[in-house]
């Protein structure tokens, strides 16, 4: 059994997401605004962290 084809809006292109930030204040829905702010904050933290953050991942060889 097959389902009709969905489209994924998962934003894996960081530059596209960053472009969206300029429209953030135009978002009316409270939940979307709150969650987008949270994800933007997460990305900001990521981009300001050192490339090999020792406390973020456990490396196994």
């Amino acid at each position, binding site marked *: 059994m097959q389902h009709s084809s*969905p489209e994924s809006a998962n934003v894996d292109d960081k530059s596209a997401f960053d*472009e969206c930030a300029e*429209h953030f204040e135009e978002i009316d*829905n*409270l939940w*979307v605004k*709150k969650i987008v702010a949270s994800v933007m904050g997460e990305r900001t933290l990521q981009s300001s962290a050192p490339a090999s953050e020792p406390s973020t991942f*456990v490396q*196994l060889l």
Partner: protein
Amino acid sequence: MRSVAQKDGPGTTRFRPITTYILKIASRCNLNCKYCYMYNLADKSYRQQPPVMARDIVEATLTRTLEHSRRHNLRSIMIVFHGGEPMLAGEEFFRYFIEAAKARLEPDVTPHFYMQTNGTLLTTQWLDLLAELKVNVSISLDGPPEVNDANRVDHQGRGSYERVAEAIKLLVNYERVSSPTKILTVVNPDSDSLAVYRHFQSLGSAGIDFLLPDATYDNPPPGLEHDSEHTPYADWLIPVFDEWFDKGDGRFGIRLFENIIGLIFGAKYSNDNIGGRQGNNVVIETDGGIEPLDVLKACGPEFTKVGLNVVDDEIDKVYADPLFRMYLGSEKLCAKCESCSLVDICGGGYLPNRYSSSNGFDNPSIYCKDLIKLILHIQERTLNALPPEMRNKMQVRAQPQAVPSA
């Protein structure tokens, strides 16, 4: 098979360090909920567990958490008191544990304390203690009396609603409460979802999370037949989402919906039941056993017994265990999930829901069709709520291939 654990190159997989310790401080419960993975599904190993975590196990647990935190430069951790019913461990245990934890861990590592309880034993005296010890409390309840008491009963078969509702009232009105009260609830597809949602709002809590019943292919959830086109769980959740999304004031959170919206926008972290992001928690049993996700007990007898114990083993050993690696790294998804355009949002769903005795975890979630329907609905509503310029830049990717069925 697909891996969402971070890969740095051949032979190298990086996992997150463990920052959340779910402590089974009591292995018995004063309730006997019909769907409980601890007591009423495939695993009965609680019968061999000490009823309450002994002090030598507490000491060993703290030694291992400090060791792991120092090794991975962690400055804070979460300790979640869990069970069974954790309050059966008694007030003295809580005071002893938290004083011992602070003495052992601080100042290098700051522990933050949480408790998931059925609420039936909560009193003002307990609240005073929990406030003093800065323990955040979350309660389990499934809805109004007729919904909750269909499954959440005591050992005499009596419903628990009245006692739990009283506990929530105590918590909500308690002025020294250290954080807003949150509720965990298991979806009952036979109930009126909007009535359930509105009931939770009326209780005054800060938010809820909807959990799907702990099901596997061997033990399918109520109302869901394998290979059926019915999506009872999505059909139950979608009206709630719409009302919450359209009329919510931004304060009463629903974690499942918030997680899905975050994942649509590419959130790096989520809860372990949606998104397939890397995990960061372990379970410590009352006998000191170090185990992965407790809900995996739904998959079979002693399923979570991986042979590790805080007395003998450091926490880092979990990264070498196949079941831990599956859970913490979401290492392997089935071919059907691999080819699905929604996999970055659902992540294959909750690991136990993928299990069958014939095929292991090499299945899509038994809730696959429900998850697809729910995610697509939330995605459409979320995108339509964006300003047009923003929506246009989101680069919605059309996927020509069909999504395989579960």
